């Protein structure tokens, strides 16, 4: 069935609503996180259980369904998965196992009661509904609104919550120019990292002489520690597709490409399904909804190259070439994919578009800060109590995010730093926790929003090692086209490796700074230019830690194995001699039945003694 006009679209929407009117909905999180926790088994089990009930239909599209079991996209509360949400009660059950299903069916679905042990508990309080849980209560979920609440495998669920109504408005009530104007006025800025104004990009593409234009979506979310885009693609694919279509209408493009990294197989599958279903009802294809607007969408799978997140490398990869950035100008808006004018935005940016068109620029400007309006999705991970996907208004402070939403540091440890923006960003410390999170405020303190990864680190994290980790990432992912990045990152990595191995030299810090300066000012693309950032920011904030590694040959956290100092607890040691017999360097001395001791000069830091000790008397000195 193809929808030919507005009236038919309205009818289709009502029809979807009718079909969706189930008394009780069981939403089982089908995001990568919960699937890994076994949500698939829960889904099967719930299907089975509800099937035995004569009144229950589990097939989608059944006319009157009493219960509906659906696989939704990510709810975002990944630490607590697998998650199951029951509507209309809005109970959110955490860490559900297939063994709980029977009880959920009996108590909650049949009797409408909650099961307390499956609800979220924090500091003695029980939270029955999702909305009350502090993790969610402090958030403003606009882009992620439907993630976890709709069936991501079927277009009908999305239609009920208004998918493609912004497209409808754009096609029937607005000109391409007025769409661009609205996005321009809303001051929407690119969520991919740099924060370039989306409306300006679109304007530039629309003003090109060349009439063949492309709309490309960057779903190559390669920053380690970030998964917001994955969750949008998995949980609400139609929102992003709608955003791309509005962009295509605005700049009069005929074809679009979504570039998704290969590590996201579920996102690819959901997008393929979404595109197929949209084509079936005539929302994608020729003469969309009976208008003159035609648009086709393709998916390209990445092949494992971080640099393809850079615009010109991404388009080269779609063309079937090595994904390497090129010198700009010409910019992507002038000569992008196949040298045609191209709108290239990130997943989250497109996902913002429909609600702006729907509610207007004024409304959007009312959220966040004037210079960075709207919300931003972050992946909150690392040593924090509640990890997961969050969405907050721009301008919120880091402290609110880490303590109010994240629930503070895991295992009662002390906060040390937060890494923001992945390999292009920096580490912020306690002192900066009250700074605002928006494009400009973060830039001022040497960090960036980047793609939105927030990795929280506790006191047991070695910052020199973190710097080495990021440098080894960028070094490995450097495409090798320009010398500053190819050679510079390699040299910086060598220095950092030497420092964590205990062979640091007093001149190393100056040398790191000099190399960083050179790479920042001369690398070809944004990835190279920002590569030294994690090193510089840790050098600035944790100079003392670097000094200790280099001069005292000491790593307080015990992370750097070559700098560890093993010690024997004299009170626990029984003098069994097992450690001495197992020490390959003969560094442990003592007499049977009295405590042994380690000769630090001879010790090669292998840790064999600690592994062998039957009394756990050997530990790493702090």
């Amino acid at each position, binding site marked *: 069935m193809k929808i030919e006009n507005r009236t038919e679209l309205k009818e289709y929407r009502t029809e979807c609503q009718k079909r969706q009117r189930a008394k009780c909905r069981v939403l089982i999180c089908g995001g990568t996180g919960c699937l*890994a926790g076994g949500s698939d088994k829960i889904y099967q089990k719930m299907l089975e259980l509800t099937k035995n009930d004569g009144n229950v239909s589990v097939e989608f599209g059944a006319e009157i369904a009493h219960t509906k079991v659906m696989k939704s996209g990510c709810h975002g509360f990944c630490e607590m998965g697998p998650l199951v949400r029951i509507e209309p009660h809005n109970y959110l059950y955490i860490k559900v196992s297939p063994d709980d299903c029977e009880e959920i069916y009996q108590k909650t679905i049949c009797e409408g009661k909650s099961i307390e042990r499956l609800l979220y508990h924090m500091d003695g309080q029980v939270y029955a509904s999702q909305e009350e849980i502090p993790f969610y209560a402090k958030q403003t979920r606009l882009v992620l609104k439907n993630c976890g609440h709709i069936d991501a495998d079927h277009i009908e669920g999305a239609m009920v919550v208004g998918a493609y109504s912004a497209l409808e408005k754009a096609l029937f009530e607005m000109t391409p120019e007025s769409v661009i104007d609205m996005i321009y006025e809303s001051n929407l800025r690119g969520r991919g990292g740099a924060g370039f104004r989306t409306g300006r990009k679109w304007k530039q593409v629309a003003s090109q002489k060349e009439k063949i234009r492309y709309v490309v979506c960057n779903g190559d979310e390669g920053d380690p520690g970030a998964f917001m885009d994955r969750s949008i693609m998995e949980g609400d694919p139609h929102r992003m597709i709608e955003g791309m279509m509005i962009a295509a209408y605005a700049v009069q493009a005929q074809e679009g490409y979504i570039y998704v990294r290969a590590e996201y197989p579920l996102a690819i599958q959901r997008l393929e399904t979404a595109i197929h279903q949209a084509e079936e009802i005539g929302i994608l294809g020729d003469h969309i909804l009976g208008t003159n607007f035609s648009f086709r969408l393709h998916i390209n799978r990445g092949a494992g190259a971080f640099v393809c997140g850079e615009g010109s490398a991404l388009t080269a990869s779609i063309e079937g070439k090595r994904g390497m950035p090129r010198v700009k100008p010409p910019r992507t808006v002038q000569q992008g994919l196949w040298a045609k004018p191209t709108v290239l935005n990130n997943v989250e940016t497109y996902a913002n578009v429909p609600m702006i068109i729907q509610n207007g620029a004024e409304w959007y400007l009312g959220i966040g800060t004037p210079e960075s309006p709207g919300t931003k999705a972050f992946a909150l991970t*690392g040593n924090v109590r509640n990890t997961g996907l969050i969405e907050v208004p721009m301008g919120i402070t880091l402290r609110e995010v880490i303590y109010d939403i994240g629930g503070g540091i895991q295992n009662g440890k002390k906060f040390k730093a937060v890494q923001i923006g992945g390999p292009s960003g920096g580490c912020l410390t306690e002192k900066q926790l009250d700074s605002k999170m928006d494009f400009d405020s973060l830039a001022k303190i040497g960090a960036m929003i980047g793609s939105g990864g927030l990795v929280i680190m506790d006191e047991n994290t070695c910052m020199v090692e973190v710097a080495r980790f990021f440098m080894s990432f960028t070094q490995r992912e450097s*495409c090798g086209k320009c010398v500053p990045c190819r050679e510079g990152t390699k040299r910086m990595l060598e220095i950092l490796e030497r420092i964590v191995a205990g062979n640091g030299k007093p001149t190393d810090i100056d040398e790191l700074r000099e190399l960083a300066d050179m790479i920042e000012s001369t690398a070809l693309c944004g990835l190279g230019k920002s590569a030294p950032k994690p090193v510089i920011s840790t050098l600035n904030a944790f100079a003392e830690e670097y000094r200790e590694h280099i001069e005292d040959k000491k790593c307080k956290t015990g992370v750097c194995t070559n700098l560890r100092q093993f010690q024997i607890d004299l009170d626990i040691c029984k003098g069994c001699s097992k450690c001495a017999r197992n020490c390959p360097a003969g560094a442990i001395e003592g007499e049977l039945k009295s405590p042994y001791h380690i000769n630090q000069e001879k010790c090669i830091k292998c840790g064999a003694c600690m592994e062998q000790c039957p009394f756990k008397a050997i530990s790493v000195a702090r």
Partner: protein
Amino acid sequence: MLDTSYYEKADEIIARHTREERSLIPIIQDIQEEYRYLPPELLTYVAKQIGITEAKAYSVASFYENFSFEQKGKYVIKVCDGTACHVRKSIPILERLYKELGLNDKKHTSDDLYFTVETVSCLGACGLAPAITVNDVVYPKMSPEKVVDLLKELRGE
């Protein structure tokens, strides 16, 4: 020279795409999915079929990390070493796998062609750190001990 069945399979895959440069990556991705690696002979063959030089095809295939010219094990284990997994101690898991399977950072596949161990930068399953995948199925919150159990389970099949 490979068995003719390989070329027939390649023909079948090529037929699903257009014969032009832009199809190179999708085609060799499909081939790799079929054989768990990219036989070099097939890369040459594909290049010819879609009308690009062998050198060009090789330059592309060797650029992207996902393509492997060497045969991989039945179970491809990817250990995530993204930031979140790294700070929640992913390296001890990798080291344990290396030790158990007699592998190292140069040798990724066990001699019996049963296991391949690789690292990836981020699987996007940061909420479940440290995570690993076995043939694309995510195993959350791993530890060196759990990984040993997992190997046993996989071997038992």
